[in-house]
C-alpha cells in the first residue's frame, strides 16, 4: 500500500484555500494608478450629471438651466459673489461631516449604528439645558462646557447601545434606531416643558445670548457688506477629519478597532478587549454626532432648540454619506461636501424654478445610485478579470 505524502482534509477545502500559482498584485500608488483614479472619478461625475439631466427631463425642467441653478446655489456666481453661497454650502456640510465621521468610526468597528440622529439631538439638548442652568458662568467657558457636554451626552447615548450589545447582545442596528425615537421625544418633552422659552410664543427653547454663539468668521467687506454664515463651528468640525484619520490608522486603538470590525473572532483570539472596545467605539461615534448637534445649535442665528424638526435627518443621511466616502475620514469629507453642495444647490433651484423642494432627495438618491452602480460594475468587471 503506497502512502500519500499530502496532508488531507476530510471536508472539501474552499477553492481559495488552494495555493494559486499567480501572485496577487498590489494596487500601488503609481502615475498610472493616479491617472486611473482620476478617470474613475470623472466617470462617476459624468454618470451622475447624466442621471441628473435625465431626471430633470422627466420632471420637465430645462436640464441645462437647472444644472446652472444647482451650481450657482452651491458655489455662487460672479454677480452675487462666491463667498456667501460657498459658506452656506460649508454650513450644510458641517453636521453631515461630523455625523458621517461617527458612522465611519462605528461601522469600521463592525457596529452598524444608525443612531446619529438621536445622538445629535441629545447633544443639542444637553447643551441647551446647560445654557439654561449655567447662566452665571462666563460666556466663553459656558460655550466650551456646552460643547463638551454635548459630546458627552451623545457619547453616552451611543455607549448605551454599545453596552446593550455587549451585555445582552441587542443588535445595535435596532437599539440605535429605537434610541433615535427616545431622543426625539425626549427633546419634545423637555423643550415643551422645563426648557420652554418664557413667552410661550414658539415651541422652542430660550434664545441664547450672542456671546455664547459662534462668531462669524468672514469680514463683511469681503462680500459686499452682507454677513456670511460661515462660523467658528465649521473649522472645529473639519479638525476632526485628521483627528479621526490618525486615530483609526495610526494608533493601537484604531488598529484594534479595525481588526474587530473585520473579524471579531480574530480580535478576541488575539486578546484584544472586544467588549470594552465595542462600548468605546459606540461612545466615540455618539460623541461626534453630539458635537454635530451643538455646533448646529451654536451656529444658528438665535441658538434656540425647537421642540421638533431641529435636524432634517442628518443622522440618517450620514450613513450614505459615509458609505459614499468608502468609510474613510477623507472620503467622508468629500462626500459630505458633495451632499452639502447638493442641498444648497437644490435650495436655489427650488427658489428660482418651479420645482418641489423634495427634489433634493431625488438628486441625492441619483448621486448614491451613480456611485453604487459604478462600483457594482467595477466589481463585476474585476471579478471577470480574476477568472
Amino acid at each position, binding site marked *: *500500500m*503506497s*502512502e*500519500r*505524502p*499530502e*496532508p*488531507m*482534509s*476530510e*471536508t*472539501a*477545502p474552499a477553492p*481559495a*484555500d*488552494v*495555493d*494559486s500559482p499567480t*501572485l*496577487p*498584485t*498590489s*494596487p*500601488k500608488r503609481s502615475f498610472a494608478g493616479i491617472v486611473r483614479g482620476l478617470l474613475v472619478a470623472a466617470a462617476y461625475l459624468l454618470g451622475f450629471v447624466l442621471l441628473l439631466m435625465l431626471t430633470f427631463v422627466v420632471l420637465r425642467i430645462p436640464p441645462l438651466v437647472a444644472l446652472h441653478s444647482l451650481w450657482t446655489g452651491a458655489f455662487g456666481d460672479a454677480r452675487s459673489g462666491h463667498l456667501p453661497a460657498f459658506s452656506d454650502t460649508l454650513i450644510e456640510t458641517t453636521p453631515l461631516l461630523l455625523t458621517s465621521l461617527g458612522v465611519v468610526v462605528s461601522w469600521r468597528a463592525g457596529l452598524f449604528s444608525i443612531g446619529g440622529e438621536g445622538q445629535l439631538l441629545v447633544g443639542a439638548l444637553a447643551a441647551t439645558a446647560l445654557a439654561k442652568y449655567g447662566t452665571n458662568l462666563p460666556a466663553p467657558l459656558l460655550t466650551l462646557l456646552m460643547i463638551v457636554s454635548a459630546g458627552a451626552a451623545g457619547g453616552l447615548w451611543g455607549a448605551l447601545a454599545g453596552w446593550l450589545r455587549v451585555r445582552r447582545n441587542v443588535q445595535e442596528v435596532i437599539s440605535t434606531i429605537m434610541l433615535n425615537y427616545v431622543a426625539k421625544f425626549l427633546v419634545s418633552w423637555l423643550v415643551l416643558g422645563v426648557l420652554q422659552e418664557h413667552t410661550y410664543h414658539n415651541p422652542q427653547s430660550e434664545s441664547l445670548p450672542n456671546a455664547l454663539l459662534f462668531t462669524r468668521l468672514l469680514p463683511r467687506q469681503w462680500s459686499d457688506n452682507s454677513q456670511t454664515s460661515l462660523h467658528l463651528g465649521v473649522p472645529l468640525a473639519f479638525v476632526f477629519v485628521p483627528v479621526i484619520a*490618525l486615530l483609526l490608522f*495610526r*494608533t*493601537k*486603538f484604531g*488598529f*484594534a478597532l*479595525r*481588526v474587530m470590525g*473585520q*473579524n471579531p*473572532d*480574530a*480580535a*478576541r*483570539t*488575539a*486578546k*484584544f478587549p472586544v467588549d470594552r472596545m465595542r462600548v468605546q467605539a459606540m461612545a466615540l461615534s455618539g460623541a461626534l454626532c453630539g458635537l454635530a448637534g451643538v455646533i448646529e445649535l451654536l451656529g444658528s442665528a438665535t441658538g434656540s432648540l425647537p421642540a421638533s424638526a431641529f435636524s432634517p435627518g442628518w443622522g440618517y443621511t450620514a450613513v450614505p454619506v459615509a458609505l459614499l466616502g468608502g468609510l474613510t475620514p477623507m472620503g467622508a469629507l468629500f462626500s459630505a461636501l458633495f451632499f452639502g453642495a447638493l442641498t444648497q444647490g437644490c435650495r436655489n433651484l427650488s427658489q428660482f424654478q418651479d420645482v418641489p423642494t423634495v427634489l433634493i432627495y431625488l438628486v441625492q438618491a441619483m448621486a448614491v445610485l451613480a456611485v453604487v452602480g459604478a462600483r457594482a460594475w467595477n466589481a463585476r468587471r474585476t471579478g471577470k478579470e480574476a477568472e
Partner: protein
Amino acid sequence: MKAGGDVETDQESSRRSAAESSDPLLQMQGIVKRYGATTALNAVDFEVDAGEIHALLGENGAGKTTLMHILAGLTRPDAGVLCLRGEPAVLPSPQEARRQGIAMVHQHFMLVPAFTIAENLAMDTPRSPVMFRPGPYRPEQAAQGAFEKAASLGWNLPTNTRVSELSVGTQQRVEIVKALATEARLLIFDEPTAVLTSREIEELFVMLRRLRDGGSTIILIAHKLAEILAVADRVTVLRRGNRVASAPVAETNAPQLATWMTGTVGTPSVMGITPSHAAAPNTSSPNSLTVEELTVSGDRGEQVLRGLSLTASKGEIFGIGGVDGNGQSELAEALTGLRRIQSGRMAWKGEAFPSASGPRIGYIPQDRRRMGLAPTMTVGENLLFDAVREKPFRRGPFLKKKALRTLAESLISAFDIRTSSQDIPASALSGGNQQKIVVARVLRSAPDIIVAMNPTRGLDIGATRFVHQQLRAARDRGTAIVLISTDLDEIAALADRAAILTGGRLTEYDVQASDSAQIGLLLGGVTTGGDSPH
C-alpha cells in the same frame, strides 16, 4: 403521492432483484478527487451489496466523507466510474442521486430550526407542487407520506413542534425520515453516532437493523471500532485517500481494524521529515507547563473535558491526537485563556495562570480564516496584531509606522510569505501563505508556550514542511509546545511525547514505539486495550 411512490418502489425493487444475482448494488471504481495539490481520493474502489450495513472506516481526512459526497451527488469526481445495479450512473446533483434512490443523512443536519417537523418534511416532498395550490397550505398534509414512514418505524413525531426544540436524537430521526420519504433504498449515514447519547445510539442501531431487514442498504461512515463491530455486516477501510481493505465484519476484529485504519504510524519519512527525539526531556522539571484535573464545558454547557492532566516541558513538543470533537478546541481555548475553566489548575514553572504576570502564550488556531486573520486588512497589518501592543513600536499614542513596516517586511521574508507586497489584503493570499502569517505572528512574539491546533490542515507539502520546521525551531529555542492535531503522522513527526484525547481525557502512548494497533484502538474509543465487544 402514495400511489406514485408505490409504483416507483415496485419498479425499483424489480430492477434490483433482476440485477442482484450478478452485480452488487453499488460499484465505485477508480474514484479520484483532488483539491488543488491535495489528493483526497486516490483511485478508490468501493462496493456495496444490496441489503447490507456497510461501514466505511477511516481517520479524519481519510476521504470517507468526500467519497460519500460523490455518491450523494454533492461532489463530482475527477475520474472514476460509478455503477448502480450494474449500470453506469452519473450523479451530477443531489436531486439526481435521490431520483436514483440514494439519500444521505448528514452529520450536521440539514433542517430549518425555526420550522416545525411537518414544515421541514413538507419542504422535501418532491411530488407536491405546493406553491400553486389554492387555499391554505397544510404542511402536515404534504408531509403525510413521511409521517407514515415514521409511524412504520414506530416513531411518533410531534407534527407541530419546531425542530429547534427537539433533542439531537429526534432531529436525527426527522433527518432519517426525510431520507426515507423519498423512497431511498441506499442510505448514507455520516457519523450518525457522533452527536448521540449512548442510549440514542442503541436505538439508532436497532433502527438501522430494521431498515436493513426491510430491504434498505445502508452505508455507515464511522471511526468508532466498537460501533462497527456491533452493527455492520461488512467494512471498508480508507486511509489517506486509498482503500486499504474490505472485509466481512465477522472475519475481523478491533486490533485488525485499528491497524488498517492507522497503517504504519510513526514513519515520519512520509512527511519528508526526520524526527528528532534525541533529548528525552525530564517531565518532572520545574520548567514546565502543568495542567491538573482540568474540567471545561463546551458551548452548550456540556462537559467536554473531564479531569484532564498534562505536562509539557520547556523545549518539548507534546502532541495530542484524536478524532475531532473530543474536546480539542475546548482544550486549546482553555489553555490560551479564551475559555473559562470550571475546575482544575494550569501552571507555568509552578505558578498558576491565567494571571497578570502569566506566561506569554502563542496560539495558532485551527481555523485561520475565522480566528486568525482580518481578511481585508493588509498582509502587513495582519502580521502586527501583537507588535502594535508593544512599547517599542509606539511613540506616545501613535504607532511607529516605519518600524512596523520594517518588521512586517522582515517577517515576510523570514517566513517566506509569498506576496507581492505587504499592502495587499490578506484574503488575496493562498491558504498556506495565510497560515504562514499566523505562524509568523505567533513565533515573533517569542512566547513561553505555543498552542497549535491542526497547524498544517489544508496546506500543501511545502508549506507543511515549513510550518513543521518553524515549530521545531521554536521548540529548540526552549518553547513548550502543545500540538493538537488530528493527523497522527504530524504528531509522530513532531512530538516528543504524545497522547490521544478521547471522551475528554488523555491517554499517553509511546510516540516512538508506533504500535499502530494500540493507537487505532485509542482513536476508536477503546481505552482498555484489545477488548472488543464481540
